[in-house]
Structures are given as C-alpha cells and as structure tokens.
C-alpha cells in the first residue's frame, strides 16, 4: 500500500520581529525553520500503516530548497521517498495545486496531511488538495482504522470533547490532528544518512488564482493587557491570594 504524506517546513518567529522592505512578510533573518508539528504526527501514522500493511511511504512538500531539511527529517523517521515541488505561491490553494500535480501521479491509497501548519494556521490545504484530486476526505482525525482497502473508519475531533465517527471511502485524503500517536525520534545518524538520499525535485505547473493576497503585514497593537503584579514570588503569591479570596467571597 502506498501512503503519501504532505508536509510543510514552517517558519517560527521568536520575540523580535522586523519586516521585509515591502512590508508583506517577516524578514527571514528572524525566522527559524522547523518541520510542522502536525506533519510529524501524519508521518508517524503513515509509518505505522506501513508497519502493519506493508508498502511505501512517500513524503511530499511544496517549498524552496531549504525545506528539504523537513523532508530529510521524515526520511530519517523512515519514509521511503521524498519529493519537493517548487515555484508555487504560499497560499493554501497554490500549494494544494502544486501538491496535486505530484500526488496525482502516485496512486496513493491514503493521502495524509496535518490539520494545519503552525505558522499559517489555515487548515485548508488538505481539504483543497482532496477537492483537486477529487478524493473523499475527512478532517481533524485522532484515530484511524484502516485495513488496507475499502473504507476507513476515522474519529474526527469535534469541539467540546466530542468525537464524530465517520466511515470514509478510500482512497481518501485525511488531515491528521496532534495526539493521534507518538511520533518516533529521528536520530541524527538516520538524518545524516537521509542526507545522502536523492530528493526528487519538480516544478509547479502554475496557474490558478491564489486564495488571497497579502496587502500588509504588521505587529498588532496590543490592548491594555493584564495588570502586571511585580515583586518577589512571595509578594506575587500574596497578591494573587487576596484577589482569589476576594473574588470567591
């Protein structure tokens, strides 16, 4: 069986920020790349499927050369092949189109994506991808029951602690939620060996309207915020205690 996992290398911002000259993005100097947290759960789920059902795990990403580090991390976890597609825009629809161009040729039994990326939080790419591939889909999965063919039974994590149990026809696209499994450690030895692996690089076909255009990026004004309590831990604790006692009286 073949599972395709779509991953993203996200960019993390510390507490200092400067913008690019055009004001449309954060200066890359202030961003540190990392594998998207949701995607490590998706990759782990794919690896567990392979352990149970055999077959192949392929990881795909849409991004520039530096995003190959994220692919290698997944290869180090145990993925078999990696593909990078470049030249697409960064909004969910441009990414989904670029990914669809690659995934279409892979005859996957399941396509796994993370629910969302930690830097953009759109939660849209997976579902858009499913539409472009004309595949059934289910979003925000915390449990996957799949025996290799036919339908899969999945648990969708609704708000408020409820689960929606759904039967999905396969092949399908599933977006994976954190906590579904425990992603295995990719040790450095494996990562170094993954550096020797050849990554298949493709160009995005292009075309299609982006989902949105960024007009301006800025640091939001913060409201009043909390009244900060100063002092030693003892003083802080005393103040908190008096607030609590007063409010609950």
């Amino acid at each position, binding site marked *: 069986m073949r599972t395709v996992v779509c991953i993203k290398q996200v960019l*993390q911002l510390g*507490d200092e920020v400067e913008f690019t000259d055009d004001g449309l993005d*954060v200066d890359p100097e202030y961003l540190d790349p990392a594998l998207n947290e949701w995607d490590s759960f998706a990759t782990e789920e794919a690896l567990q499927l392979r352990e149970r059902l055999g077959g192949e795990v392929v990881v795909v990403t849409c991004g520039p050369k530096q995003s190959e580090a994220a692919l290698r991390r997944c290869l180090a976890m145990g993925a078999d092949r990696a593909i990078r597609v470049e030249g697409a825009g960064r909004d*969910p*629809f441009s990414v989904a189109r670029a990914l669809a161009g690659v995934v279409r040729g892979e005859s996957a039994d399941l396509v796994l994506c993370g629910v969302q990326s930690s830097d953009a*939080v*759109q*939660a*849209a*790419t997976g*579902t*858009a991808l*499913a*539409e*472009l591939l004309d595949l*059934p*889909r*289910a*979003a925000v999965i915390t449990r996957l029951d799949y025996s290799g063919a036919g339908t899969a039974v999945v*648990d*969708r*994590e609704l*708000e408020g*602690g*409820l689960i*929606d*149990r*759904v*039967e*999905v026809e396969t092949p*399908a696209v599933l*977006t994976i939620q*954190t*906590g579904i499994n425990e992603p295995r450690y990719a040790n450095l030895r494996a990562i170094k060996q993954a550096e020797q692996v050849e990554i298949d690089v493709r160009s995005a076909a292009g075309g299609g*309207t982006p*989902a*949105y*255009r*960024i007009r*301006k*990026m800025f*640091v*939001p004004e913060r*409201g009043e*915020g*909390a*009244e*900060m*309590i*100063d002092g030693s*831990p003892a003083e*802080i*604790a*005393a103040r*908190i*205690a008096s*607030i*609590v006692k007063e*409010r*609950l009286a």
Partner: protein
Amino acid sequence: MSVLVIAEHLRGQVRDVTRELITAGRELGPVTVAVIGQEPGSLVDAVNLDGVAEIVTVTIAAGEFENDAYQAAVEALIADRQPRVTLLGFTVNSMAYGPAAAVRLGLGFASDVHGVALDGDAVIATRSFYGSKVSAELDFPGADGVMLLLRPTVWAPAEGQGSASVSSLEVAAVPSRARHREIVEATTSSDVDITQADFLLSIGRGIGDKENVEMFEELAEKMGATLSVSRPLVDAGWMPSSRQVGQSGKTVKPTVYLAFGISGAVQHLAGMKTSGTIIAVNTDPEAAIFNVAQYGAKADLFDVAEELEKLF
C-alpha cells in the same frame, strides 16, 4: 454586498459560532443564513435573529454533518444567491468542506479571520501569521466571491428577534463518501466536570515535567480549586482529556481562572477568555494569555506556586 452565512449545528442545537457569524455579516450587508440538515426547519427559529434578512433551508439525507453533502449544498447556495461574501465559522466541520467549495468555485479564501472590513468594494480580511505574533491584511483581487472562515469568540453572538423570510432550496443529492456513523463522548463521564467549577487552576506546557503535575494538583486542592489543563498536557498523556480547556476540550467560565505556564494559544483562549477573573503566571512576558488576563505576573511558576501553598 450580500452575505451568506452557513449555520453550524450539532445534535439539534445551533452552535454559538453561527450567531457570531451573523454579527460579523451584519456589518457587511444583508445576511442570508443557510441551514443545512436533515430537519432544517427545526433550527430556523434559532437563527432568526436581528440582522438576518433571509433564511434558506436545505434538506440533506444525513442526520449530522457530512462534508460532501454540505459542499454540494453550499455550492448550490452560492450559485443561486451569488453572495459577495460567504461566512463559515473556523471550525472542525468547516475545515472539511469550506476550502473544497472555495477552490472549486474559484473563490477568494482565508481562514481563522479575526477582522473583516470593506475598502470600497474590496473585502479586506485580517488574520494572524507566525503563531499570532504578527497580523496581516488580505484582499482577494480577481475573485468573484470570497469565503471566510471566522475565528470563534471574536465577534459577539447576535441577539434579538429578527424577521427573516424563510425559503428552501432543493439541492440534488450527491454521493456522500465520508458518512457519519455516530457521535462519541471522548471523555469518561466519571471524572470531574470542569465546566461546573467556580475556581479553576489551570496548567500548561510551562510546567515542564510530568512530575510537576502533582505539585499543582496539591496546590489546587489546598486553594479549593479544580485542576484543568491545556491541550499539550493531554496530548502528552499526563492528564485525561476531561480536564482540557480549549476549543477541542471544554469551554469554561469560572469566577476565577488561575493559569500557570499557559502561553495562550488561540484555541485555549477560546475556551476560557470569558472567565470572570483571569490571573496568569508565565515566565514569557510576551505570552498571549496576558492579553486576556486581568492580572498577570512574569515570574517563575514554581516559586509562586510554592509561596501560594503557604498561604492556603
């Protein structure tokens, strides 16, 4: 500017986010609310609120949400009503069909939007990037319509009786490839119900080790509080999900919410920001939770916790 709001409901109840969408939509233009379901008529009254011009019902075969059915219904509604803006809540269900409909119809799209404005004829959506540290204004040149998924709890829920006209739209049934089977309660009902607590002591990733949970459990007991947690502690298996505060956990509104080591991710804040008095202790002065808290302290959690224990 016509606005289409897609109502969200579960087990026969319209969810709060729908009312928030109505408030947001009202500011843009006449609002049409679509209710898609097996018995949509029973939900009409709940969405007939001040500012709603029209309610359209679509009947589908499935008893609960199914993404293919909703997508077909929404596509038909948009084709029929040609709204300028379609509003959905940024919810688990919307994630499963919103983007699909939008990419198929060539709409502009943005999710987790917390601000909507008009610049002349253009729709401007404001959302966060890079983990809520920066915001961006988005526009949608060249798109005929726009679909926005709005962040819950940002707009106030609409109130007041409306006088909307009610009609129905027939949508041809489509094969539903992801079929709803049942709703399951994730949490064991034997554990404490944190939504009933008057005083919650809540802990997050900042507590570090699993071993430290015990210390805060003891502190909670001494202070007369119920212990609750943010999502990472449940994901890590340190506490059961019945204790989780947040969008995918429980929404709570205690008189006092005392948070230790919680940074304030949006989904967590959504679950507690309407609490009476919020006090947050965190070593990170930039933690988002300080934006919703009434009182805050930039201090070491354990030092403060230790001192607190002496006072109770």
